C-alpha cells in the first residue's frame, strides 16, 4: 500500500498554500503549429508528423534540463488501457485525448506537474498542475515551458487573434486557468449557490468536479476562466486569484460558523463518515467522495485527529476504477469494484492512527 501511494502525482502528495480549501491549481495553454492542419482534419501521416516533431523537441536532453525534469513520451495506442485510465484519473490527460488514442501522445514530467498532450483538440496542450493555491508559480512555469517549446516549434499565431486554436472559444491567449476547491462548509450551510451565482459576472465559471453540471459530488468545485481573448494572461490569472481568495474567505467563515455555532451536528456527521469509511464493506464512488469530504473537513476542523490530511487527495483519485484495477491487478466488474473500493479505503485508514 505504501508503495502504491507513491504513484500519486505531485499535486496529490504535496501541500500547497491554503491546502485546507484549495486542492490544486492548474493552467493549460493551447497551441498549434503553423503550416500543419489541425487535428480535426489531419490524416494519419500528418498526425504522426506532429507526434514525431514534438517528440524530437521534448526528448532533447537540453530541453528536459531547462524544463526541470525528465520527460516520458507516451504514444497512447501503445500504452495499456489501465495506465491511460490512471493518467486520466490523476488529471494528467483528458477523456478527449484517449478517444483519439490512435493519433495521440503525451509527454509527462517525472513529478507529473508538467504534461503536454499532443493531438488532442489542438496540436499541443501544455498543462501545469500544482497543489494548493499557487497561481503565480503555476503561470510562471507554464510560461517558461511555453517559451522553451516555442524556441523549436513555430506556433500558429495571428497579430489580431493571438494564438490560433482549433476552437474559437480558446483563441487569443489559449489559456484555461483553474482552481479546484473543496467547499464543504459553504455547501452544508447552503450558501454555495449565492457565492457561485456572483461569479458568472466576472468572466469566470464554476463547475462541480464530479457529477453533472453544478452538482458537486464530494463538495469539489472547479473555478476557471471562460474568456481567453481580449485580456492578457496576467489579467486572467490575477482575476482568478482574487476571486479564489474571496471564495476561500467565505469558506473559512462558514467553517468557523460550523465549529462555533453548530459543533455537535458537525461532529456527528464527521464521525459517522469516518466510521463508515473505516468499516463499510461496500462503497460506491459517490458515497466515497461524500464521506471523504466529511472526513477531510473533520481533519481541518480538528475534530478528527491522527489522519493525514492528504487522504482526500489520495483517495479521491485512487478509488477510481483505473487505480483500483492497478492495485488489485485485475479488471474489476462494476459490482466487484464497490467491494474492492471499500477494502482499499479500510486498508488506507488503518495505516493512520485515527481517533476522535
Amino acid at each position, binding site marked *: 500500500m505504501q508503495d502504491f501511494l507513491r504513484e500519486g502525482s505531485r499535486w496529490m502528495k504535496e501541500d500547497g498554500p491554503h491546502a485546507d480549501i484549495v486542492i490544486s491549481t*492548474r493552467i*493549460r495553454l*493551447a497551441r*498549434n503549429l*503553423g503550416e500543419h*492542419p*489541425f487535428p*480535426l*482534419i489531419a490524416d494519419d501521416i500528418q498526425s504522426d508528423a506532429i507526434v514525431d516533431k514534438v517528440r524530437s523537441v521534448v526528448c532533447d536532453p537540453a530541453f528536459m534540463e531547462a524544463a526541470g525534469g525528465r520527460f516520458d513520451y507516451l504514444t497512447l495506442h501503445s500504452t495499456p488501457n489501465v495506465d491511460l485510465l490512471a493518467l*486520466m484519473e490523476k*488529471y494528467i*490527460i*483528458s*477523456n*478527449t485525448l484517449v*478517444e483519439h488514442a490512435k493519433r495521440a501522445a503525451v509527454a509527462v514530467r517525472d513529478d507529473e506537474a508538467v504534461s503536454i498532450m499532443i493531438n*488532442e*483538440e489542438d496540436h499541443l*496542450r501544455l498543462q501545469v498542475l500544482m497543489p494548493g493555491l499557487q497561481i503565480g508559480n503555476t503561470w510562471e512555469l507554464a*510560461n517558461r515551458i511555453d517559451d522553451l517549446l*516555442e*524556441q523549436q516549434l513555430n*506556433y500558429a*499565431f*495571428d*497579430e*489580431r*487573434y*493571438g494564438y*490560433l486554436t*482549433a*476552437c*474559437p*472559444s*480558446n*483563441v*487569443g*491567449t489559449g*489559456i*484555461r*486557468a*483553474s482552481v*479546484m476547491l473543496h467547499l464543504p462548509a459553504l455547501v452544508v450551510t447552503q450558501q454555495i449557490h449565492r457565492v457561485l451565482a456572483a461569479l458568472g459576472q466576472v468572466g469566470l*465559471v464554476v*463547475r462541480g*468536479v464530479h457529477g*453533472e*453540471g*453544478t452538482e458537486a459530488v464530494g463538495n469539489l468545485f*472547479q473555478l*476557471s476562466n*471562460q*474568456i*481567453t*481573448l*481580449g*485580456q*492578457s*494572461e496576467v*489579467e486572467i490569472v490575477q482575476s482568478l486569484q482574487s476571486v479564489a481568495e474571496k471564495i476561500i474567505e467565505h469558506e473559512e467563515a462558514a467553517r468557523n460558523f460550523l465549529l462555533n455555532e453548530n459543533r455537535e451536528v458537525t461532529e456527528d456527521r464527521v464521525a459517522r463518515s469516518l466510521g463508515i469509511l473505516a468499516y463499510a464493506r461496500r462503497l460506491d464512488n459517490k458515497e466515497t467522495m461524500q464521506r471523504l469530504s466529511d472526513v477531510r473537513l473533520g481533519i481541518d476542523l480538528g475534530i478528527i485527529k491522527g489522519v493525514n490530511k492528504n487522504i482526500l487527495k489520495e483517495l479521491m483519485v485512487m478509488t477510481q476504477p483505473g487505480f483500483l484495477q492497478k492495485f488489485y491487478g485485475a479488471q474489476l466488474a462494476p459490482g466487484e469494484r464497490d467491494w474492492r473500493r471499500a477494502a482499499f479505503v479500510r486498508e488506507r485508514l488503518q495505516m493512520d492512527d485515527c481517533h476522535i
Partner: protein
Amino acid sequence: MLCQECNQRDATVHFTKIVNQDKQDFHLCESCAREKGDLMMKGFGNMGTMGSMNPFDTPAGGFSFHNLLSGLLGLEGTGSLEAQASPHVQPGNRCATCGLTYAEFAQVGRFGCADCYRHFHQRLEPLLRRIHGGATTHTGKVPSRTGGLIKKRKQISAMRQELQQKIAAEQFEEAAVLRDQIRTLEAQLGASEGV
C-alpha cells in the same frame, strides 16, 4: 424551474428560438442543452473544450451554450443567403488552405487549420464577440521568435500612449526622452521590415 426535457434537473440554460415569426422558449438543464446543441448541429458529439466540468472532457455548460449560438449563427448565415445564391461556394464560405466550409465549421465548432481564421474573418467577428464578452483582439502574450515584430509594434504604441500622458502632465523633459526612444525603435522596425 425544472428542465422541460428530462424534468429531473434544474434548468440552467434558457433560450428563445425565433424562426420566421415562430417563437419558442427553451428551459433546459446542462446535459439536455448539450444534447440539443449537438442535435442542432448534427453532432460531432464531444466538443472537448479545455478545463470544464470533469476537468477535461465534456464541454462546460457555458460552452455548449456558445455551441448553440455558433450553430445558430452558422446555420442562419448559410441558410437564407445560399438558398438564393448560385450553386458554387461564395467567398468567405470555404478555407482555401484546408477546404473546410463555414457550414462544416458551424457543425463541428472547430477549425481545420490556422488559415481558416483569415478566410472566415468576417463571420468570425460576431462569434468572437459573443464568446469572449465583446472582445475580438488579442492583448496578451506574443511568441518571442515569430512575434518579434509584433512585440516591437506593441511596445511602440504603449510608449506613444505614455508620451501623450507625459505631455498632458507637462513633464516635457521625460516626454522628449520617450519621443527619442520611440524614434529609435521605429527606425529598427523600419529596417527589419525592409521598407
